[in-house]
């Protein structure tokens, strides 16, 4: 994880870089969110009011003001995935993780989210975990993926 100061150094002090800064910093953070201290620092650097930065973060589902799990599991629910059994995939994830859409597991390892099209309609159903996309999913495949990630942490 790189510090916010290092991220800011890469960008000119211009309002239009706000979203890029937010995205880059959030992606680098273990719990994938922008804290209120981060908002203050960015606000000072770009000279944008904190209320406006919060407004921007709250507009994009990709950005978050609350901590998420180490792995953000995003399941597509758009039509091609839906007709290819995405509902059962989601149900299986709920069963495995014990949380539903928008929630984070108590051990802060996983956050489950339903998302729009991931651009993998030809290999539906699909999901994304952090930056990696998993395709042609089946309940069995999901169990392996989740167990592997759990194993990685141990």
């Amino acid at each position, binding site marked *: 994880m790189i510090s916010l100061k290092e991220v800011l150094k890469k960008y000119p002090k211009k309002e239009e870089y706000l979203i890029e800064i937010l995205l880059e910093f959030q992606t680098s953070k273990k719990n994938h969110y922008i804290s*209120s201290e981060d908002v203050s620092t960015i606000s000072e650097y770009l000279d944008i*009011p904190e*209320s*406006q930065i*919060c*407004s921007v973060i*709250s*507009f994009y589902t990709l950005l978050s003001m609350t901590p998420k799990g180490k792995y953000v599991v995003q399941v597509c629910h758009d039509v091609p995935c839906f007709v290819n059994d995405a509902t059962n995939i989601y149900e299986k994830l709920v069963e495995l993780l014990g949380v539903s859409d928008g929630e984070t597991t108590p051990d802060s390892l996983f956050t489950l989210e339903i998302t729009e099209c991931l651009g993998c309609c030809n290999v539906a159903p699909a999901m994304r975990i952090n930056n990696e996309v998993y395709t042609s999913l089946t309940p069995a495949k999901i169990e392996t993926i989740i167990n592997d990630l759990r194993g990685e942490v141990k």
Partner: protein
Amino acid sequence: MVNFKINNIDISVEENTTILQAARKHHIDIPTLCNYPDLEIKSECRVCVVEINGEKKLFTSCSTIAKEGMIVNTNSPKVLNARKTILELILANHDAVCATCPKNLNCELQTLANKLGIDENRFPTVLEVKPIDNKNPALIRNINRCIKCGRCIDVCKSIQSMNVLDVMGRGQNIEITPAYGKFLTDESCTYCGQCSSVCPVGAIIEKDDTDPVWEALNNPNLHVIVQVAPAVRVSLGEELGMEPGSIVTEKVVSALKYLGFDAVYDTDFTADLTIIEEGNELIDRITNGGVLPIMTSCCPGWINYVEQKYPEILDHISSCKSPQQMFGALAKSYYAEKMKLDPKNIFVVSIMPCTAKKYEAKREEMRIDSVNPDVDVVLTTRELGKMVRQMGINFESIEGSPFDKPFGITTGAAAIFGATGGVMEAALRTVYEVVNKEELKDINFTMVRGTDGIKEAEVELGGQKVKVAVAHTLANAKILSDQVKNGTSPYVFIEIMACPGGCIGGGGQPYGTTAEIRQKRIDAIYKVDENMTIRKSHENPDIKALYDDYLEKPLGHKSHQLLHTHYHSRKK
């Protein structure tokens, strides 16, 4: 010129005129909701939609520029149906309990629903009741009534440059709140109340303090007195149905007497006193090499601003309390002694054009016995209007009466405190004569009058030319504060008022305040000044008597005890 048609009427307007502006110029009524004079065009609410021939969709007339040959219909069945649907949808997500809402009969949404003939809502309510922000002494934010028009954001951002409020979330889930949905107390809110004066519904309102006043008035053990701020005499009439800019000084006194106050006093008296103290402070700082420029301290919104945003320049703020607090302090000391009353049995009410005054009165520094507030309750012009209505007083026809003694005589200099530049002008009238030991040829310092955001003037004091400046709105205050902070300020004296136009445009003034109405109130204030026998604070005989009797001399020991205060950094 652009020629086009609205409802079959030939219209000719200048280029870049919106359909709404063109319609209004020709007395064609198009209903609006988020639109507000002097604020940005938001086209947020969609209520002002119109049909344009040849176009499939409806257009918002507030943001659509009229084009040559356009044929516009503002009342076609399609438009009427859309407008009604829009309003029904807004109402389905609104806490519409009108009869018990403080904005009842003063609500733009309610008026519009009535105008569009909505007797019944086809849509079931989707309102999810959320907590109300009532943690501060000045303003209440009830998000359940918010219709997301964005006027409050606009005024907080562009007029005041405070940016306390913004839109959070997306789509139908949006909310207008401070960052993180926090309370106003968590933010640098100055309680200027400009948001409350533009809110079309009851989502941001002042904290209603009329109940404790009724209680005090009905308590036989209390001596209940009231002070009336300069700006209220040119706005209470308007609040009660008279023309904007009506001067109702003496009617206010009668109405307050009728409500049961034991004595009615004029904050103008302590405004005169402020001029004597602040003027001497300025002279002292100039002659003894004190911190300059000196900045005024009458405006509590400005004090809240500077304590939170510019604590580095607190040395520049005059140590004088505001006229409201000087009155409170005198009421519970000098007045109590003179009337042989226990200060604990004196209940002081202020009628102010301001919501931030409610916060000021609650400050711990504003208690001369360190326990009880010097000013017990602050009511806005609107709240006094409410009490007058509750008592069924026919304000317009009430016979006027003069303010009570011993603070009976006031000057024109004090009256103009209500308009931007007024404190500066009043101070100059006194400081000039005291320092130069000669009479002013023309006491009207027109350079500091008017509604320009920042005004400058040059005055000769003791053989040298000095510059002074006046700013109103916090966005302009920011510009002058930055200069002071950076040491580049060319001035010796700066007047700052947080609200546009000064106190006459305060956050507690009648709803519907616009630049035009502010101007009418300003004109009225200067008329009050012109009609006064005495127009310079240092010539007020009652002020002289107060110093002879009690305070001894300006900036003396007693003055410091009662009339001066200190500030502290509250940077967040």
